[in-house]
């Protein structure tokens, strides 16, 4: 049942470009994601408010206002199509009825705009991973698991096009690994814990998608790599460390596709280019358009091979023109228009390269998203099917590639980056082939109070 990806989905680097991919997906409204056109993907969230039985009705109204405002602007600007992402807040997954109701409200408004104006839209339902509400997290059963699965079922049944999640398996150890810049613990969290949880979780999500005529779209390493990027942007951890973590997460994210996900990947999965190169599925991305949600050193390059272009998230707050989600919608539409015009004029590869060259020499995090860099690493990753060893390999290749890029003067780096790259190279080399041997090696450095080994089949027979 599990797929394996043993070769790249591309033969030619010049085919690896935004807006199209080898395995596009077609939404219920007929939008072809990855079929040649890049579309906006709008994400949005509530303003500062409490959610309870009473106020949830206000929240429904705000969600409706957001969608009405955004789709009106999309229509006025002749958008050829728009994807909406409902990313639920904790309360809306904990109380699946609320999340399902918001999903339904959005679908109804989408239908209205389709009927009235012919506007083509699609909905991604991204359910918040509530399993970490128990500390230590319980990953495979319990009320949080049940509620989350109920929410996925309901959103899928009512007509969402895509199911996504930012799953958190392994994050309970990865956070500490990040702030201490411990690459071994990063590899353990991503390659063992996260990968095992993904296999379990995505088995269920693919099943739900299949039964409800929708797409299992993919799982972002948001809590891992984006946390790293934000910490690095604040100067808390080395940028090279965050960039290596980014590449390492590609292996984790791939597990969803091995289990049957078909894309589009989630916007904040910046390792998306690796997924696209290996699986040929469409991807979503965010960059300068998502500055409302977080800053990044990859504002342009993140668009280079994107099939959806997103704003990540913005609250319903009033700016001088109008509410912030409408502002995002306008900006995304213009960005996509420009990229699609380049495609129309046969200049998409040149445009991609402008996006790439404008960012990649300035920052190591941008450098690891270069399509050629992605190709080189991905070619090696497809040779390794074991997610743990693939995670280690990804990190090793990223370290090597960055060292070479810095040495060749192709990317400028902080004066301290070389030191950290050397430390990482050394520590990665020390990681043994066998995950259980590795576990025993680093066991005493892990905070045992923070996670439940049994939830990750540690000590049990496993395919990993």
């Amino acid at each position, binding site marked *: 049942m599990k797929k394996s990806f043993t070769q790249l989905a591309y033969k030619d680097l010049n085919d690896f470009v935004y807006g199209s991919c080898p395995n596009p997906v077609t939404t219920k409204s007929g939008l072809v994601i990855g079929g040649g056109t890049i579309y906006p993907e709008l994400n949005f969230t*509530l303003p500062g408010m409490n959610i309870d039985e009473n106020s949830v009705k206000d929240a429904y109204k705000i969600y409706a206002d957001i969608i009405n405002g955004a789709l009106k602007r999309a229509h006025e600007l002749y958008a050829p199509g728009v994807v909406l992402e409902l990313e639920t807040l904790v309360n809306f997954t904990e109380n699946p009825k609320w999340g399902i109701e918001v999903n339904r409200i959005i679908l109804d408004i989408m239908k209205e705009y389709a009927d009235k104006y012919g506007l083509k839209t699609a909905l991604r339902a991204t359910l918040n991973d509530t399993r*970490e509400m128990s500390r230590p997290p319980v990953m495979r059963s319990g009320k949080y698991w049940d509620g989350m699965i109920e929410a996925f079922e309901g959103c899928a049944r009512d007509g969402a096009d895509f199911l996504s999640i930012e799953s958190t398996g392994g994050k309970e150890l990865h956070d500490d690994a990040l702030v*201490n810049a411990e690459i071994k613990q990063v590899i353990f969290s991503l390659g063992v814990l996260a990968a095992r949880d993904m296999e379990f979780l995505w088995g269920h999500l693919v099943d739900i998608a299949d039964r409800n005529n929708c797409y299992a779209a993919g799982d972002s390493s948001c809590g891992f790599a984006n946390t790293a990027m934000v910490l690095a942007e604040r100067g808390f951890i080395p940028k090279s460390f965050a960039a290596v973590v980014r590449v390492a997460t590609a292996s984790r994210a791939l597990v969803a596709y091995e289990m049957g996900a078909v894309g589009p990947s989630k916007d904040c999965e910046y390792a998306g280019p690796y997924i696209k190169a290996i699986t040929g599925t469409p991807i979503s991305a965010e960059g300068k358009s998502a500055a409302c949600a977080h800053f990044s050193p990859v504002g342009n390059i993140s668009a280079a091979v994107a099939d959806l272009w997103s704003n990540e998230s913005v609250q319903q707050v009033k700016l001088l023109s109008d509410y912030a989600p409408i502002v995002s919608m306008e900006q995304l539409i213009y960005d996509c228009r420009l990229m699609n015009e380049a495609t129309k004029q046969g200049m998409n590869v040149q445009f991609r390269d402008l996006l790439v060259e404008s960012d990649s020499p300035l920052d190591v995090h941008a450098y690891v998203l270069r399509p050629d860099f992605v190709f080189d690493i991905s070619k090696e990753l497809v040779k390794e099917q074991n997610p743990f060893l693939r995670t280690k390999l990804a990190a090793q290749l990223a370290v090597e590639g960055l060292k070479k890029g810095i040495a060749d003067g192709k990317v400028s780096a902080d004066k301290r980056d070389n030191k950290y790259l050397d430390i990482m190279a050394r520590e990665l080399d020390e990681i043994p082939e066998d995950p259980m041997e590795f576990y025993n090696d680093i066991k005493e450095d892990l905070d045992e109070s923070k996670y439940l080994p049994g939830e990750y089949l540690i000590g049990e027979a496993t395919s990993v």
Partner: protein
Amino acid sequence: MSKFENIAQCVLDGEFKKVKGLVNKAMDDGAKPMDIINEGLIGGMNLVTPLFKTGEMFVPEVMKSAKTMNIGMELLKEHIKEGDLVTKGVIVTGTVKGDLHDIGKNLVGMMLESSGYTVIDLGTDIEPEDFLKAIEEQKPDIIGMSALLTTTMMNIKETIDFLQEKGVRDKVKIMIGGAPISQEFADQVGADGYGEDAAAAVELCDSLLSEKAHA
């Protein structure tokens, strides 16, 4: 201070494997434990904090320095009187009800500990009642609350209102933080301060406690 420069440098460099040897040697040389602590160990950490603020040190490096200092402290503890070591203050931290995002809060905690504060972390998803209990039992100088979501940030206000109602609000300073939080929000809900990130939180605690001292 030159006498314990090597120990201070060892803390600054985060050479936690070497600190025991250096401290033992100083003791053998007849140094007073409190001098080793103040001039060597804490002296080293005092070099760290400004370098972190200006971005010249990373968090993992600060963590290693703190670890180095703590190993030295552990070694000297039995040689000093209880009460000789004073904490800069006691701080209780937690993410408010409904909020699970704790990496920011944990970072703040680590940086505060490195700067000489005693930090008691309640964890995530903390009910107002539990903050109240912590105030009564731990008698902290400062409560630090965080929220990362627009739908949980209002629980900061709820918690502050609850503490007000229970008559303990003025016993502590309250600082808040998290992505959707701003100075204006802090003013609105009646917090004493807003820390944009871990570096800012340390400065904020220093200034809140000097206010408190002068009040």
